[in-house]
């Protein structure tokens, strides 16, 4: 058996078959990985921004003096309701000491799919005046108060839902939290 010979048709066929199978498995792995990873990334990003939004609401509510029915900000007047929250906070200096008699104002509100925060601080306050977008994929925001007269409210229930799309799949994240005002008179 010293002659040189090529592959038979059967051998070539088997090799080709195995190669195609291996390539198909690899491609499938790649496609699945891309899909799972992309979805996870979108979901994690959305859940993260939902958490950040809730943290921002909490950071505004806890130190507040109280809820205001409405307040005239330089960008417009905001009125407290189910999707808008207007708070009055005592101004603080850089070391966290309350500046008596001085007030900062924060409005948290939803416009279409955006959750926004408007801060108007006293010039002596360490808080910075400005508008910030807290989240961009808001599906719903619901704020309820423990008193029909919001100025007497001692707690606020904040619920928010966020939606994100990936490849036709909808990922949604719902958060709900009760927050008590710590500084009411």
């Amino acid at each position, binding site marked *: 058996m010293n002659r040189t010979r090529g592959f038979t048709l059967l051998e070539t066929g088997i090799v080709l078959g*195995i190669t195609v199978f291996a390539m198909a498995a690899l491609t499938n792995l790649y496609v699945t990985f891309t899909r799972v990873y992309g979805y996870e990334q979108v*979901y994690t990003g959305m859940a993260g921004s939902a958490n950040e939004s809730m943290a921002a609401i909490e950071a505004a509510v806890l130190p507040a003096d109280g809820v205001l029915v409405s307040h005239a900000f330089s960008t417009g007047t905001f009125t407290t309701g189910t999707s808008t929250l207007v708070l009055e906070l005592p101004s603080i200096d850089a070391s966290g000491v309350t500046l008596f008699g001085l007030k900062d104002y924060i409005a948290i509100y939803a416009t279409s799919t955006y959750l926004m925060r408007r801060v108007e601080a006293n010039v002596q306050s360490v808080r910075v005046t400005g508008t910030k977008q807290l989240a961009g994929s808001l599906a719903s925001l619901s704020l309820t108060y423990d008193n029909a007269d919001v100025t007497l409210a*001692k707690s606020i229930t904040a619920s928010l839902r966020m939606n994100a799309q990936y490849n036709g799949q909808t990922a949604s994240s*719902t958060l709900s*939290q*009760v927050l*008590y005002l*710590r500084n009411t008179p």
Partner: protein
Amino acid sequence: MSRGFSLIEATAAVAVISIVMLGTSLLLSRLPITGREARDQDVALRVARTRLELLQGGGYAALPTTTPMAFNDSLLTTLASSSASLTVADYASTTKRVDVNVSWLGSKGMRTITLTSLISQSAGLP
């Protein structure tokens, strides 16, 4: 003398490649589970915090006397087979200790988180 690969060599190569691919697939299948575990834990923690906030807001006098007591929260429906309960115990003469438990079904069986706080007669939320 020139020769090709033996059947043993070829089989070994295929086996090595298979193991690598299997490992990658297993890793891939863990990815969504890990993400889900983290989110579930976050939701459970939020449920427990809200309950503690409500108990602190209600004050010492309003603490439930018959415990353990189950409670409900709208977020619990987003956790699999979830349940929540709280226990109130005497800690000192005018202070009570509150434990809030939230359980849910994770990827490796039931998981529970517990938050504990002291609620005193003289101090509370305004």
